[in-house]
């Protein structure tokens, strides 16, 4: 499973990479490697509970 907003891209229009990198379709930016572990639901992490971007986009408060 992975975040529905996660994409892997080699380019964002400005920069090119040899290997496709984690890209957030909400922020339109490449994702930090440590944050990509949330996007990919590694180590028990989960975008719905752990990602500020996901929660803000979904209109979720932190006390929900």
């Amino acid at each position, binding site marked *: 499973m992975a975040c529905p907003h996660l994409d*892997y891209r080699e380019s964002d229009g400005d*920069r090119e*990479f040899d*290997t*496709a*990198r*984690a890209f957030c379709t909400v922020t339109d*930016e*490449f*994702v*930090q*490697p*440590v*944050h*990509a*572990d*949330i996007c*990919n639901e*590694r*180590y*028990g*992490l989960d975008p719905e*509970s*752990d*990602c*500020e971007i996901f929660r803000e986009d979904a209109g979720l408060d*932190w006390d929900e």
Partner: protein
Amino acid sequence: MTYDEYLDGKPVVITAALTGGIQGKEAHPDLPETPAEIGSAAAAAEEAGAAVVHLHARRDNGERAFSTERFQAVTDAVRDATDDVIVQHSTGGTAAPDALRAEPLRTDPAPEMASLDMGPMNRGRRLTSENTRDTIDGLHTEMRERGIKPELEVFNNGHLNEAFRILDDLDEPPYLNFIFGPGTLAPPSPANLQRMVDQLPEHAEFNVIGFGPHQLPLTTQSLILGGHVRVGLEDNSYLRKGELATNEALVARAARIAEELGRPVATPTEARDVLGVESRR
């Protein structure tokens, strides 16, 4: 280390933190990520004056990796590209389970040094590196079994308590690394660094990391206090405001400042002597 030893010209050990695992090429286009890139960066850092290289491993896409296999690829590339530099593997890993955290200790040969986090560190709203006492003791036991010199990562003043707890179990000299930055790291200030140094036993060696703009002033202060320094792109992307750095340039600047202050820069052989590290080259 003490101020008197600074006056006596004791060599300073420069560690280059080449890659880290938090940010990657999305933040800095020249940040080394692949084993070949990290090997090249290590060679350039050694040439500029680094005696130790602090290593993390990554997947091909720059994301974090903890497996022995990925660390083996990185350490092989570094050993092939460098002459004598001391290899230090990270055992840090925000959110990663303990079983993965030990994998970097199991390369062949084992790293000469490894980081050992002394307590929790938060990152952002939900990420944390727990570093329970069980985690600390488990990693430390495996380091002892494999003859790996631990560098005790003191993220803030409270972690000194944990470092002191295991002090008697460490081979001489104990080697502590003070880390200054945002969040749950030690608040960056010269007074805070001085206070932490004042609490160390005299036979301990210490190293200083300052994140971002704190790298230059706090590592310079460490030189005067008789400590060692860590620089590199893991901790700081900029040489000065608006100018992206390279690992090599950050090491060269640290070496230049040390020489100006009368601290000779330790070769890897001298660094092994200062820190009590067993050679595996």
